[in-house]
């Protein structure tokens, strides 16, 4: 008899724990959406945050340029190398350009680009905002009648939404270019065939797909990383944990949303 009640209470604790974490997850999701959308809605009202936006675009966009160029370059190179050896088995090396271009524009550009931006810019957003919370800078702003959502969150979210598509486009071009160098210069694919097949096989639809993805990823990264920093537990560990979580959650979200976007819309 007592064993049965033990089991029941074990089940009850499990259910209770599951329910509690589910509710907390929903709460956080709602909180993040409300916070992000509220911050974004401030874009339509004065005072404009032009200067802060430019500074953020510099820190997040220009700052991520080098890592994006390096990642794009090596992605294009390795795709050309791998693609060449696979295609050479069927004697269709001329399709190399189409293969490299298609994979970079449709998938690798947006996804790998987003990962790099999460690592480079997203983590710094969370850490920066988190430390502002710890040192009570946001409260100080509020004391001076400056809305911290407008001053801190809005420029960062908008800068990321704008920077990701630009960086992804640079990633795409660099990847296609280095793929060309490896394919044509090192492996001896016909230079005309590389570009002609690339242009022939890739339609505007594929390129739109890449753009849509990169804008959505930018939105996601901006929302998640600012939320994580803004709602971080205001301690040293809290900020560290929030930064880790921001990187993990945004990366996972990017992969999940990528699949959903690809299967339903593009």
């Amino acid at each position: 008899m007592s064993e049965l009640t033990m089991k029941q209470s074990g089940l009850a604790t499990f259910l209770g724990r599951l329910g509690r974490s589910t509710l907390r997850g929903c709460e956080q999701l709602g909180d993040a959406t409300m916070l992000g959308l509220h911050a974004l809605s401030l874009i339509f009202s004065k005072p404009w945050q032009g200067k802060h936006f430019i500074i953020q675009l510099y820190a997040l966009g220009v700052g991520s340029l080098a890592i994006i160029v390096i990642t794009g370059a090596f992605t294009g190179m390795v795709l050309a190398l791998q693609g060449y050896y696979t295609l050479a088995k069927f004697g269709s090396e001329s399709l190399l350009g189409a293969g490299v271009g298609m994979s970079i524009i449709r998938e690798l550009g947006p996804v790998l680009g987003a990962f790099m931006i999460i690592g480079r810019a997203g983590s710094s957003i969370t850490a920066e905002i988190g430390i502002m919370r710890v040192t009570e800078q946001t409260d100080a702003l509020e004391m001076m009648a400056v809305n911290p959502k407008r001053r801190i969150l809005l420029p960062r979210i908008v800068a990321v939404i704008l920077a990701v598509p630009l960086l992804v486009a640079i990633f795409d071009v660099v990847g296609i270019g280095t793929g060309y160098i490896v394919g044509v210069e090192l492996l001896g694919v016909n230079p005309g065939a590389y570009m002609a097949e690339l242009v022939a096989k890739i339609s505007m639809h594929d390129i739109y797909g890449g753009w849509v993805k990169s804008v959505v990823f930018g939105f996601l990264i901006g929302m998640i990383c600012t939320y994580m920093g803004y709602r971080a537990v205001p301690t040293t560990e809290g900020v560290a944990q929030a930064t880790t979580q921001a990187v993990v959650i945004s990366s996972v979200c990017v992969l999940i949303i990528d699949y959903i976007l690809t299967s339903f819309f593009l």
Partner: protein
Amino acid sequence: MQAYRRIEMTVGAFVIVGLLAISWLAIKVGQVGGLGESGYSLIANFDDAGGVRKGSDVMMAGVVIGRIDSVKLTNNDHATMMLRINQDVKITEDAFASVRTKGIIGDRYIRITQGMEDENLEAGGEIEETESAINIEDLISKYIFSGKE
């Protein structure tokens, strides 16, 4: 202030590089406003389009001179294609259009052979002489089953 000016300029350069990359993708790779926009269109009717699609090439003497704008079924029995031909290419009134294949398993395209007439086709004109796709399976089955009757 000086430092902020430099930041502004760097950001401007970054945005321009990004936009250049986007427009290169759109114009060069995606072919926005490319062959599809300029040129004039012709009509051709085929008994069998043989898998030619929108965007397939139109070639003359092995050179791409245009693209297929649309392929649709007419009167429930034959295919009507809209051909978009580059502006500077003139096609004679008795030209001959046929569906061909690049290589053995390659894409289908339309080959146009010039005729003998001096008159050229106007925009919206029809290429009347057409030859349908050669279907290798049909040829083989004709060959195999022809002796069995």
